């Protein structure tokens, strides 16, 4: 298990009811981690419509996780 720091934006923040959290996870990739979170937090958006960034850099979904990573999930938003 590793510890990662998560930040949620927009719809994800609203659905999680928090701006972020720290989680212990056994997920091996970002995609696996997001699927875990979808179940736990009830996220309606599929990974395909999101961007993900790790340690302030956009990242591919198959990137392996490392202990202490800061991960940001970003949905596109449309309000103006």
């Amino acid at each position, binding site marked *: 298990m590793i510890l990662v720091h998560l930040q949620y934006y927009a719809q994800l923040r609203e659905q999680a009811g928090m701006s972020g959290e720290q989680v212990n996870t056994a997920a091996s990739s970002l995609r696996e981690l997001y699927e875990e979170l979808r179940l736990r937090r009830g996220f309606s958006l599929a990974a395909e419509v999101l961007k993900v960034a790790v340690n302030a850099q956009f990242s591919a979904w198959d990137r392996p996780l490392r202990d202490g990573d800061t991960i940001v999930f970003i949905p*596109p938003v449309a*309000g103006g």
Partner: protein
Amino acid sequence: MRFRLSAEPVDTGLLHDTLKHPGSGGFCAFEGWVRDSNEGREVDGLEYEAYAELAQVEGERILEEAMARYGVTDARCMHRTGHLQVGDLAVWVGACAPHRDEAFRACRYIIDEIKHRLPIWKKEHYLTGASEWVACTHVYREHEHEHKAHPPHVHHDHAKAFVPDYSRQTRLREVGDAGQAKLAASRVLVIGAGGLGCPVLSYLAGAGVGTLGIVDGDRLDASNLHRQTMYDARDIGERKVDLAARRLAALNPAVKVRTWTEPLRASDALEVFREFDLVVECTDDMRSRYLSSDAAVLSGTPLIMASVYQYEGQLQVIAARPGMPCLRCLWPQAPAPETVGSCVQSGVLGPVPGVLGTLQAAEALKILLDLPRPQADALLLVNLLDLNMQRLPIDAAQGCALHGGCAEVARAALALAREQADVDLVFDRLEDAIASGFTLVDLREAAEIALDPLPGVPSLSIPSAQVLARANELTTCRPLLVCASGQRSGHAARLLRANGLREAYSLAGGLRGMRTYS
């Protein structure tokens, strides 16, 4: 009342009769007409808008001044508002006096002062289909009466033409007079005059950007006022482009304003972008954002995009140069409208678009003035709950570059959008659509329908998220998809067409559009 604003044509014979005084030996009248060209452009007609209360008071004052100054018996003036055709009477001035000289001079004084001082704006319609607002007080000419026989008149201090004072920004070493000249020569298009557009337009007009274009098809709704700070309660129901143009003319008459009352389309966006040095995307519409990104890439026009959600926002500057990322480098396809939220569905705190729009205005001025900016292109995330700002650099090599490059991707997307342009249909009444053989398909959620049911017309209800899964229910009819704004229905109709339902259509502007105008 000697001065009169009129939305209707006025009988000049009657005006003439009011000036028949037995003590008058002379009468003089001036008529101003709508002519067929202005500054080399052919004019089709025009529209006058007045700040009526102020115009009335100022008009009366001018007539009183003329009577006192030249000793005329009486003077009258009528100025038109509303739509006028070439040849129509726009303004009428008449004065009667014991002798002809006073009548001539008073007449001349009145028309000059009316042109200089009345808060009236003129929107010219050109034969090309474009239109433009011009503040009638815009060009100030020192008029002949001032410095000859008469010393400057105290009443005239307030009437001096407004001269913009940019000293607070030209004092910045990086701006200076050279920077101010750059701004005056700049042309900026602002797409969307809502929550983001209000601060963008206000700051750019205040800064003295020479030409501002405004694109917006919406009318002001009471629910806009908590975040759209250029407007007020009296403006509800008016077209935002008109309100914004009037507001900008009042804020800085030196700025030239051009307006588009319909959203840009795949067929004309590129052409419009080429007329500007910079574009600021401020709509709440994903399709407009993607169209803007494609048009920016293909025209090489820098684009500043922002969007908001509840307490957060995103900002991306698209440099529109080869090798620099575009919107599709991040999100290749427009997501379904129901997944991205809107101010209507999700709510938004008023200052949030204010902050993001202000950031857009700052970026626009930085680009126009060549001020230092971060080199790497990035997505800026702004969270106003925890006051966190985060810049995420965008790696262009991981975006459109994998699919032939931004330009190739944009060209294909524009071509597809042009092909699908007939998806959006306009109807004045839903009954007309049914009479034309369409089956209405209501894509709104049950809760929305309950609040605002379709009035007495048969329809099928399929929430937008299920439309593809239930496409088999639509194969035997010509479906006209409807939703509140036309965004979900437009997206769904394109989705259905991409999946073989070639007869799928969307009600342009949605039910909201239909309600407002009918």
